[in-house]
């Protein structure tokens, strides 16, 4: 028995880290996965969201990037007990496949809407065509929908085209702008000030408030950007 435990110990140590749980006011709790960002931790967050959203008093479970915010109808009576239940569940989650749908988004790269493409090319020391080739060649995973309605936080950007956010946001960046912000990429959903870098534009509607399923992207979906046209 002892030898069995010894053999298992390192493995247990790597998975046994607890999530960090903290309150945000009286009606919300934030659960943060331990350790670095990995797609495995992200899918554990989705699995956790699936289960806890049916718990009593949970109004909504809101996935973020390797974290989950729970919103309650009423302040939970015993935070300690609730936290312990979440930790226990975290260590016993069923596997959830990345089984979302595949969304193909046609993009007009460059041009008027992709006005930051030259800056991205200059900073990454690539040609504009190479930036487009790398961006459209990637496959991305929707981690979470947040910030604005239907805006997907996409994971999977090639490190060669990482591009820091701007210190001064562009005013009134157009809805549909295909952008890079740090190690993430996304499609702007509303026309507004935006600190990400616009490299193209997509006409595919991302959000329909009149639909029961308002957001085209959902956590776990796969996204591919296809070159519709290049305007250099």
């Amino acid at each position, binding site marked *: 028995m002892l030898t069995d435990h010894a053999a298992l110990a390192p493995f247990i140590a790597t998975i046994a880290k607890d999530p960090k749980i903290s*309150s945000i*006011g*009286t009606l*919300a709790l934030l659960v943060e996965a331990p350790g670095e960002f990995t797609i495995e931790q992200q899918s554990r967050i989705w699995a956790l969201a699936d289960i806890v959203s049916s718990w009593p008093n949970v109004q909504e479970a809101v996935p973020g990037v390797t974290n989950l915010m729970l*919103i309650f109808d009423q*302040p939970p009576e015993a935070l300690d007990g609730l936290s312990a239940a979440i930790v226990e569940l975290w260590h016993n989650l069923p596997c959830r496949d990345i089984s979302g749908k595949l969304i193909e988004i046609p993009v007009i790269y460059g041009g008027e809407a992709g006005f930051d493409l030259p800056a991205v090319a200059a900073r990454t020391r690539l040609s504009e065509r190479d930036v487009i080739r790398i961006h459209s060649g990637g496959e991305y995973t929707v981690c979470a*929908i947040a*910030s604005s309605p239907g805006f997907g936080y996409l994971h999977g950007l090639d490190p060669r085209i990482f591009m820091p956010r701007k210190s001064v946001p562009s005013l009134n960046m157009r809805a549909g702008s295909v952008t890079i912000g740090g190690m993430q990429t996304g499609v702007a959903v509303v026309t507004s000030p935006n600190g990400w870098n616009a490299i193209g534009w997509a006409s595919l509607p991302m959000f329909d408030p009149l639909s029961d399923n308002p957001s085209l992207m959902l956590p776990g979906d796969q996204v591919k950007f296809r070159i519709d046209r290049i305007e250099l």
Partner: protein
Amino acid sequence: MIEVLTSFALNTVQDKGRVGVRRFGVSTSGVMDPLALTVGNTLLGNDENAACIEVQTFPFRIRFTIDCAFAVTGADCMARLGEVSLPPWWCAQAKAGDVLQLNAPKRGARGYITFRGGLDLPLILGSRSTHLRSGFGGFEGRPLMAGDALPLCSAAAPTEGRVGFGAEPPDIAIPAPVDGKALQVRALRAGEYDLFPTAMQDLFWSTLWKIGMQSDRGGYRLAGPKLLLPEPVEMRSHGVVPGVIQVPPAGEPIVQMSDANTAGGYPKIAAVVQADLWRLGQAKPGSFVTFKGVSYREAVAAMDPVENYLARVGTTSALYRAL
């Protein structure tokens, strides 16, 4: 119909806001002072979530095209129906053609007008609140303008009842601790509180914060000393709710309010308790606020006086309506 005669910037149709759609990136919107909405509807015998007009720029004038019972709550806007002055937190009867005017309040920031039966506007994602940034909900997804005609739910209106009575304003019924001239609101520590050095934590609780002029329904910027971390903290994007106080790297705290993004990534030092959010919703840019740390148990118990107050208003309103 309700016809808008005069409206400056950013007066909108709101109810309690959108529930259960944050996972699609949709913020709640909704009134900044939920007590004012609830009482405004309770006085009229409405569903307590019936849509109202939130007025935050003045003067604001509407004309009734039909007879309609209404209530005015929130900040005391010295409302006048025609030539008649209305007491604050009061319901009254308008005749077709009457003009209601709300004036700039001396104290408080926002006035609310509720109508018997509510405003007949479509439910979008479960709410009639205006989502200004995305342009949906409320009246055509935008602030009200002179010339707008808002339909009333006459068909769904509750049975007629007496009007011409009021409710005790909640800032009198549930007095707030006042620290000098500043509003004091209670707050709970949030996730990154312990990352701030003790001196910064103390500074947060002891400072008389000025609500910056660039404050709106999205959030309040707090002017005062800088709250700095010993080293930058990188947070992954996560959900936030109204009341959370985030501290961007420059050290100027921001309290998220009704129209705030669903997600944030700045360290969170504290969050205002639910029971005090309505008071903060009535705080004007340029006014002062202090934060008092409370335990979770105290934060939960703080809702009791609010719920008791609403229950009292409900009971007395039902009695008056039946007279």
